[in-house]
């Protein structure tokens, strides 16, 4: 039985607290039940402030001002969206470092509805300078990324998810398979659906679990010199990294298709993560249809039309 990302995180942090006296954990109830043994061993460095997310971030900032390395953790909307100004001011503006670890990702808890979804987490952090953003696609990738984050410096965001790729990948931008008709960059847990979608298509597939800083040189090296068709597939808001792809390819004539969680509507639906992936066009069928439409092979299918009203383009004219 392999461990989930959340189990990897709590196990790794518990052990790291024993060996690194600089480390401290601030919680707002979420996962406190998984860290009771560590809290008993280190009552001064495992702090559960109750259901108080603003305080969780403020306390992390204060801990960092005394030279500690705070780890703060909650479900993504309550870590990034609710106390966003605290991230901006109590961490960034104070000039301190911290490790923010979210769980739940964009649609891991679909039955919980919109209140427990945070597809804008990476886009929001993108408005602040200096954050390293890791989007692991497998628990073993998280296990590899955590030590550097916990024992390093600066601001780090680790986005954990229950959507896992079948196999772990090494860190850094990876060429998963070669191809000549275009370049698909799959981020984190999107690799599985992207590989399934790309079957039978002559496209190169790249993989990244670290999106900030964005490996612009790596992407530039992977696309053909003359002209390029690039598809970005991210597990959070569509186009979150589009500005960085544009910057990386500013000297290459290129077309860019950005796939991700749709921005045009609030998806008011429960069900399963698979159903949400399909609704956002992020399941293998949806990604495959988008790829074929964009690259011009096979039947041209509009993106996202399967989800119903309000999304179809007007006919005629132009």
């Amino acid at each position, binding site marked *: 039985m392999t461990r989930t990302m959340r189990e990897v995180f709590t196990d790794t942090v518990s052990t790291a607290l024993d060996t690194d006296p600089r480390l*401290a954990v601030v919680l707002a109830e979420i996962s406190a039940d998984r860290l009771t043994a560590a809290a008993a061993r280190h009552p*001064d*460095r495992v702090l559960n402030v109750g259901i*108080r997310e603003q305080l969780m971030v*403020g306390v*992390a900032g204060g801990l960092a001002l005394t030279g500690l390395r705070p780890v703060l953790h909650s479900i993504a909307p309550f870590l990034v969206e609710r106390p966003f100004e605290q991230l901006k001011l*109590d961490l960034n503006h104070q000039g301190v470092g911290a490790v923010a670890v979210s769980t739940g990702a964009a649609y891991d808890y679909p039955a919980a509805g919109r209140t427990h979804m945070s597809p804008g987490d990476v886009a929001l952090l993108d408005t602040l300078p200096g954050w390293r953003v890791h989007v692991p696609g497998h628990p073993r990738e998280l296990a590899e990324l955590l030590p550097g984050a916990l024992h390093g410096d600066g601001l780090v965001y680790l986005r954990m998810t229950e959507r896992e790729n079948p196999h772990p990948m090494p860190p850094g931008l990876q060429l998963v398979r070669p191809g000549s008709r275009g370049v698909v960059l799959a981020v984190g847990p999107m690799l599985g659906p992207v590989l399934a979608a790309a079957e039978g298509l002559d496209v190169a597939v790249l993989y990244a679990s670290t999106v900030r800083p964005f490996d612009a040189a790596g992407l530039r090296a992977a696309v053909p010199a003359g002209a390029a068709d690039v598809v970005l597939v991210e597990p959070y808001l569509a186009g979150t990294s589009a500005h960085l792809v544009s910057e990386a390819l500013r000297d290459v004539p290129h077309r860019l298709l950005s796939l991700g969680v749709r921005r045009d509507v609030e998806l008011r639906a429960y069900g399963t993560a698979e159903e949400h992936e399909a609704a956002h066009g992020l399941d293998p069928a949806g990604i495959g249809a988008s790829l074929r439409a964009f690259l011009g092979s096979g039947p041209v299918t509009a993106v996202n039309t399967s989800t119903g009203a309000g999304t179809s383009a007007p006919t005629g004219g132009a």
Partner: protein
Amino acid sequence: MTTTELGYRDLPGLLSRMTGDEKHSAAATSTLDVLWVLYDSVLAVEPRTADHPDRDRFLLSKGHGPMAYYAVLAAKGFLDPAELPRWTAFDSPLGQHPDRTLVPGVEIGSGSLGHGLPLALGTAFGLRARGRRRPRVVVLVGDAELDEGSNHEAIAVAGRRGLGSLTAVVVDNASSSHGWPGGVEQRFVREGWRGHVVDGRDHDSLHRALTDTRTDQPLVVVARVEPKEPR
């Protein structure tokens, strides 16, 4: 830098360097007396020890109207008084809200209300975790600033965790629109804090209240000053 330390009576002159007024009265600045008493006779911190891990920490949470803060820092030698006339210029370290990375001796950047008390809690927890039992953490908030809910997240936890190294000074100029019936100190005392209400212009009373600490209980000192003039 100054070679001789300046005194309380020099503060109006230092304030005037920022305001341009010829005579800037201390009474026009609600925080001036509290800040003076803290830096003159309560806090164990001076320019020489501004980066020492065992220094006392002062966090100005109410970051607006920082002229009194800059004047006191200048009087105590943290800041060159020659910087004061250029305050708010593009490349001045002194803005209308202080930035800890630009001003020596400033512990936090503030301006948006409701951030100082949570940061002070974290600082107190951090010092405790690092085994530094000596330093105090003093945070200054305004009575209207307490409107922000983040303060109440901090007040409850500080009281329940018995953070004796933490002191909150509430400069109360009755500027909160909805007020604090029964007294602002009650919001702290009910959560387990030790509380004092004093005349925010009386240096002896301020000193007595600010030094009446307990090891297992945070302290709140409400410093009452003249009500803010209606806008």
